[in-house]
């Protein structure tokens, strides 16, 4: 797929974001923090590193020693999950019309998903153990 810059915004429009998409991938996270933050799961969009722009009254909540969760101060929209060290920031897929034409490819913490609903499809699904192993491994390499 050719690279394309998508523009999105929060519910009230006060925060606008852009990012270049070259792989139209959505990831869903069912961890307890994402679930409490979003009502169900955090869906994020894969964007080209360094391509994002953000404008407006974004606020960050430090949800762990290593990560922040962004939200709009005016409407409470979930904006992103980001590493505190600035390594990466995953924008919420919902900020973009039709989720920036991207598709679900991966679910994290699938064993934490409540029993009352599930996502359909044959995409990759990772348990808590697999998810943590993946992130820990990535950290070791850096």
């Amino acid at each position: 797929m050719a690279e394309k810059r998508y523009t999105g915004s929060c519910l009230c429009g006060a925060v606008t974001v852009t990012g270049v998409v070259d792989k139209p991938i959505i990831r869903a996270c069912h961890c307890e923090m994402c679930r409490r933050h979003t009502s169900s799961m955090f869906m994020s969009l894969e964007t080209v590193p360094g391509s994002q722009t953000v404008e407006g009254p974004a606020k960050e909540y430090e949800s762990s020693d290593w990560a922040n969760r962004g939200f709009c101060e005016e409407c409470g929209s979930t904006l992103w999950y980001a590493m505190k060290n600035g390594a990466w920031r995953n924008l919420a897929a919902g900020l973009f019309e039709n989720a920036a034409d991207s598709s679900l490819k991966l679910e994290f913490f699938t064993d934490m998903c409540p029993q009352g609903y599930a996502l359909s499809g044959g995409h990759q699904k990772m348990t808590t153990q697999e998810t943590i192993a993946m992130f820990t491994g990535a950290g070791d390499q850096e």
Partner: protein
Amino acid sequence: MKGQCLCGAVTVDVTPIDSELHACHCGMCRAWTSSALVGMAVSPDGMKFDGPVKSRTTSDWAARDWCDNCGSTLWYRVTIPDHEFYHVSAGLFANAGGLALTKEIFIDRKPSGYAFAGDHELKTQAEMEAIFAAMGDDV
């Protein structure tokens, strides 16, 4: 049923009107939550909460509330007189309160790249707007 937001600053104690979860795919809920608002219906009588709740009126018939400290989605609230009810975030409760998804609304606004598994009652944007218009006409 007791729940709380991500940071714990907002706590809720609710009595849902039934054991159903509904998901809303409207453009506002999508932008607000990253995907869909999944929640349960609670009448004003069944709703208790405490903490730094921030609110925004998002249409002529509803408001949306969140935690001012951590930004957690708390609830969608219908504000039409005599029709007030809360659609409280399932994520505030362990295992979504043990409730199960039975209905998806604004299904024609759902992004094409993901879907919930299973057969649920589905309502389109036009069907939902007709329902809200009828509520407003009763006033």
